[in-house]
């Protein structure tokens, strides 16, 4: 299937290539970085890109290229962790709300709407400011911002599936709520949520980099792309410090979004026929 889509879709192919590249880089990063990403060399700080330092060096003489490569790991992990955490919470929450329905559903959905209305980034900043910025706190904050999306999708899926006759069939056979929920409804509802989660990966990476740009990620000297761009803003006149990590975020997000965009098209049954 993959190949067939790829053949017909230029953007999708690019996405696949870019993403695979980043995943490979993340896997083998320590082996291919030309320098230790932590090694400081104050004698050679702020070196412009050259054959020695492809992306130049930063304010304490570290090799930006090596740091960008290493940074792919954190970005991927952060994106993955957020999505997993948020979709897990969202699925359970939305599933319960949708299944029980009625007033419970109404109240639960109002609460999730409230979380959605809540300015997420401010929430994240507050949490980070309060608990101290760290990867865990940031991921936690992101998951808190993110789960209602999944809850909503899950809920509507569950509500739609709840009406299905096979659920009624199970009911008429005397199946318990537990069994109905986990055996009949859940397996048929998680698909779209998981798809949404995959498509959301790029957005999670973006949000994470935004937060780490604000200084809310893991502490230095972790090579976080967002934080590196912030360093670039601080050292405005050395364009390479911020440009390359920014490009890294961009390419990773573009890659996942190209895939997501094409998949979205592909998964839409009305559009699929013609792909």
């Amino acid at each position, binding site marked *: 299937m993959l190949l067939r889509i790829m053949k017909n879709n230029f953007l999708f192919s690019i996405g696949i290539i870019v993403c695979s590249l980043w995943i490979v880089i993340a896997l083998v990063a320590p082996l291919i970085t030309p320098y230790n990403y932590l090694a400081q060399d104050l004698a050679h700080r702020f070196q412009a890109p050259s054959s020695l330092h492809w992306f130049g060096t930063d304010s304490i003489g570290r090799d930006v290229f090596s740091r960008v490569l290493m940074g792919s790991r954190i970005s991927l992990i952060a994106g993955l962790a957020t999505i997993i955490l948020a979709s897990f919470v969202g699925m359970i929450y939305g599933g319960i709300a949708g299944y029980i329905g009625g007033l419970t559903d109404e109240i639960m959905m109002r609460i999730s709407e409230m979380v959605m209305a809540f300015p997420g980034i401010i929430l994240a900043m507050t949490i980070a400011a309060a608990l101290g910025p760290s990867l865990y706190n940031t991921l936690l904050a992101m998951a808190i911002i993110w789960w209602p999306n999944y809850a909503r999708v899950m809920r509507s899926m569950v509500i739609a599936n709840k009406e299905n006759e096979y659920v009624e069939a199970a009911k008429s056979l005397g199946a318990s709520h537990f069994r109905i929920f986990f055996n009949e409804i859940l397996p048929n509802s998680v698909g779209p949520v998981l798809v949404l989660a995959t498509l959301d990966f790029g957005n999670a990476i973006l949000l994470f980099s935004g937060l780490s740009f604000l200084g809310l990620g893991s502490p230095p000297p972790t090579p976080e792309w967002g934080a590196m761009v912030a360093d670039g803003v601080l050292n405005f006149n050395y364009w390479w410090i911020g440009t390359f990590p920014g490009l890294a975020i961009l390419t990773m997000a573009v890659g996942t979004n190209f895939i997501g965009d094409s998949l979205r098209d592909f998964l839409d049954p009305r559009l699929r026929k*013609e792909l």
Partner: protein
Amino acid sequence: MSDDIGQDDLLRINNLNVQFRTSEGVFRAVRDVSISVRSGETLGIVGESGSGKSVTALSIMNLVPNPPGETSGEIIFNQQNLRELSLEEVRKIRGNEIAMIFQEPMTSLNPIHTCGKQIMEPLLLHKGFSKKEAKARALELLKMVGIPIPEQRFKEYPHQLSGGMRQRVMIAMALACRPKLLLADEPTTALDVTIQAQIMELLKNLRQEIDSAIIMITHDLGIITEMCDRVVVMYAGQVVESGPLKELIREPLHPYTEGLLRSIPTITKEKQRLHTIEGTVPSPFEMPFGCSFQPRCNYSTSNCSEQAPDLIHVSPDRAVRCWRQVNELGQDNRRVEHGR
């Protein structure tokens, strides 16, 4: 080749083929279909779901989506081959000389325009009516299709109407330009029994009033019996039998038609065990070799699974696609292209 076709044919479809290129592969939804309709006549097309009835109707209007659909053959309407006309010319015929009523009244109307506006549209487009004239005519049409308080319905949106009302609006819209040919693709299947009766009655009455030919697509033999002059039976993309209504019902020639007729419970028949056609319609990707109906056929012989039968005339008005008939007719068989 076919010499017995009268010049009074309003529409003649010759060797229509439609195939779809899908992700699972290519399949032929309509195979070598030839049909003709005289003006003023009502032709019924019956057949199982997926047998290509709608696609045939759509290809008359050149509405088969392309891609994935690929159409070939001749569609001669009013002495013009519609397939050779430019899109612009086809558009002038659509909605004007040929109109169509669709199966789903719920989704076939645009939800964000009022019914009146949608009825007026073809009038403004094809007849060059002024807005005022168009409105007057639209109200007239609404009255004609039996909608009470047309002035109010005119202003309402489709969702404010019941299914039966919507189907009436669809009919009014189709009849707006007094088309010469009306294609009705299962116009009543989505409706309730009593409403279905209303619509059928309406169509019957209108048929006399508007004097257009009608192609009535349905899988309900009852509707065919009540409405049609002639019947075409389709199976797996092919015409398997055609003929005048009464003859065909009394004396079906194709085993499929026969099975179909016998398997329907009716209230006039005595209660007895229903006749069945065993098996299921073949998947379009796995068409059986030879005759498409052969795996389900009680009379099938080795010949049937080896070679596909042609559509042959058994009388000037009747044609059938079956080896049994071929064998009975012996050497006399003639290949025809028009299901008469």
